[in-house]
């Protein structure tokens, strides 16, 4: 009998503990109920494919050789490090990220600053500038191909008015430049909206106080605005870095010819080589190894960026300490 047992000083009466336990169970059930859609999706659509991908990376799987499947250990990982095309693709990807990421951040911030000015009709500009972000990639790329095509494109057509017969190979020899234009135009809307949200969160009194103290526009920007939106820059930097290292769609859609599905060499990015390894040559084991190595690289770079935030990201919590 519960009531016959001695009670410890300070312990809850049994009936209260039972009530607490029932409440705790209900809360747990509710918790699991609410997170179960995400949890199931995460397990079946992320964890399991990643684990399967890792297992495939340890085999000689080519998509159709299940009856000849063999465990090859870490050989595929070693092959990636010796593969000149993987090295080339990775170097081009780093160049792509080094050009695109700062450019996208700077232009997005600049546009956000411009549309943050309180002017009549500003909403129209914000909408127009955001529009490219909602255009499907295929439609977007085809529009740009019409503009940038070497022999019959509109851009070269306009340039030909100045210098007849201009045929700049924007999507082959100069594809890095051509695709950067497309990426920038496409990414501007998202970048601008996020920066705009950050800018509108800055208390006006801080800016006013700086101006009363004699700060000019540049000082207000560099001493007040920039530190206050540094967490936003940090957030955009992380997202942009991951996106840039995974870039695949633009080279495959914009810089390939109709006959061959290999993009121009200047934009032969790492993910393009992964795709070609997987589906062009059927080397699924090696392709999966390449993907896992990319995950590791992204993880390491993300950790490094996180580590650097203590030097340049303004934190009110740390400031209060």
């Amino acid at each position, binding site marked *: 009998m519960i009531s016959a047992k001695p009670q410890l000083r300070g312990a809850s009466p049994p009936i209260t503990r039972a009530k607490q336990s029932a409440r705790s169970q209900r809360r747990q059930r509710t918790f699991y109920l609410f997170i179960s859609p995400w949890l199931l999706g995460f397990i079946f659509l992320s964890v399991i494919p990643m684990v399967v991908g890792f*297992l495939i990376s340890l085999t000689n799987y080519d998509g159709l050789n299940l009856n*000849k499947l063999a465990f090859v250990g870490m050989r595929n990982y070693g092959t990636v490090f010796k593969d000149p095309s993987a090295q080339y693709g990775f170097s081009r990807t780093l160049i792509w990220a080094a050009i695109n990421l700062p450019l996208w951040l700077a232009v997005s911030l600049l546009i956000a600053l411009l549309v943050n000015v309180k002017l009549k009709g500003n909403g129209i500009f914000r909408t127009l500038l955001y529009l490219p972000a909602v255009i499907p990639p295929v439609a977007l790329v085809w529009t740009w191909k019409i503009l940038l095509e070497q022999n019959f494109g509109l851009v070269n057509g306009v340039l030909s008015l100045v210098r*007849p017969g*201009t045929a700049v190979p924007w999507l082959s*020899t100069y594809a890095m430049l051509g695709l950067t234009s497309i990426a920038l135009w496409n990414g501007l809307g998202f970048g601008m909206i996020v920066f705009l949200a950050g800018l509108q969160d800055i208390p006006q009194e801080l800016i006013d106080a700086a101006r009363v103290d004699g700060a000019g526009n540049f000082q207000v920007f560099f001493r007040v605005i920039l530190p206050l939106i540094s967490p936003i820059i940090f957030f955009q930097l992380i997202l942009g870095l991951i996106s840039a290292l995974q870039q695949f769609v633009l080279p495959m859609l914009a810089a390939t*010819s*109709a006959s061959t599905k290999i993009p*121009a*060499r200047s934009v032969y990015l790492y993910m393009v080589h992964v795709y070609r390894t997987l589906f062009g040559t059927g080397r699924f084991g090696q392709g999966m190894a390449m993907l896992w190595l990319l995950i590791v690289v992204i993880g390491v770079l993300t950790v490094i960026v996180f580590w650097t935030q203590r030097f340049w990201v303004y934190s009110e919590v740390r400031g209060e300490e």
Partner: protein
Amino acid sequence: MSVEKRERAQLSRRDMLRASGVLAAGGLLAACAAPQATTQAPTEEAATEAATESATQAAATSEATTEAPTQAAAAEGHVVIMRNVGELTDDMVAQFQADHSTITVEALDVDLTRLIAMYAAGNPPDLVRVQAPSVPQYLARDMLYDLTPYFEASTLVKLDDLAPSNDYYKANSPLEVGSGPIYGMTKDWSPDFTIFVYKKPFEDKSLDVPSDTEPMTYDQVRELGAKLATFEGDRTVLFGFDYDAAWIDRMWSNHLLETDNHLYSDDFTQIQLTASDEARKVVQFYFDMAKDKVGASPINPSPNWVGDDFDKGLVGLLNYGYWFGAMAETDVTKGQVIMIPGPTWAGVRRDPTITATGMIMTKATKVPDAAWVLFEWFNGGQPADDRAASGWGVPALKSQYDKMPNSTDFDKQRRTVLQGELDLATAPLQFNPYHGETTVADAWQQYAEQALNGQMSFDDMLANIEQDVNTAIQDGKDAIGS
């Protein structure tokens, strides 16, 4: 149950995550264990065996498991076919099912990724649309159903009525294509080295239109293409001579065979570009054409398919087979197109098909009789008659040759030229069973661009292509355990 026990019996969040992980891992291990249980690790001896031997065993196994076909009327079951919807429409499928009440058909769009997924799930389609290079690859992976007994018993697709293109579906081993058991057949085909001529630029430039009776040499084609290519400043407004770059290795192979040389070593374990003078000459020919901007190239790409460019009047000479004639005349090119014989590389004319698009039955099929009924109907029944009359290719059955269109002047002209080419289309190319269909073309595309831009020498380009392809071959050999 006491309160304490009840509390212990509750599943903590940590426990749930742990259990989820164990369940997921367990499922994965179970999924991975199945194929491993049936996979024998290759012995050292087995690993050193020639591919021919393993493939011969595969062929033998295939023969042993192929049962004599039952009567078509008795066939029943659910057939899954991976097809091109333009060739086997939903209406055609409905018609087939209406005519064959015991057979149901599930038609999927042809998709390599889906095929791989279906194989991985142990449930591949029964019939698959393929091109010739897939045959040795699939044979090396023991994926093909030997259809010889079905062909022998068929009244619609008789073995002695098969056009030469069907030799691509006969093989004694992955390295011996051309004769032996038959694993499929072409839906239609063309000698693929003929050239379509758009006459207007010839008139504009006062050039003689090439003869449609006397074949040119490739040097003459290049020379003529260079004269036809039209520029405005740096802009190309007319490509002189164009071809499908995705098939460039097939073209190289055919040129080399004219001089009794081969693109690959005898055992197909090496592509031979740097060590073969003749191969260097062939590649140099295409490199020089690209350099001179005779046609579309990695440094002067066209956003369109070359066929579209021709239809828009942007190409003077286009290398394509008879099938292209069905779409060569447009509002722009109407009355201005002729087909001329395939050129010769070294004086020994060859004009095989290099695609041989057709159909195979997978060895994993559980309904071979029902699948055969659909196969036979599509390749020898009404759909085959309709295809023959459409002019979109030479029929796969010789008895249907006379059904090809012959009404317009262009139909008559291209059919006359075709007659001369059919006799040159007998010997199939031997495709490499170890690498993908576009491995060579992809490598060419990458490195040619760098070499054409002066970032790499011609010799380095050859070496890089060779290295890429040979690595792919080695990996392919490893994948099939030969």
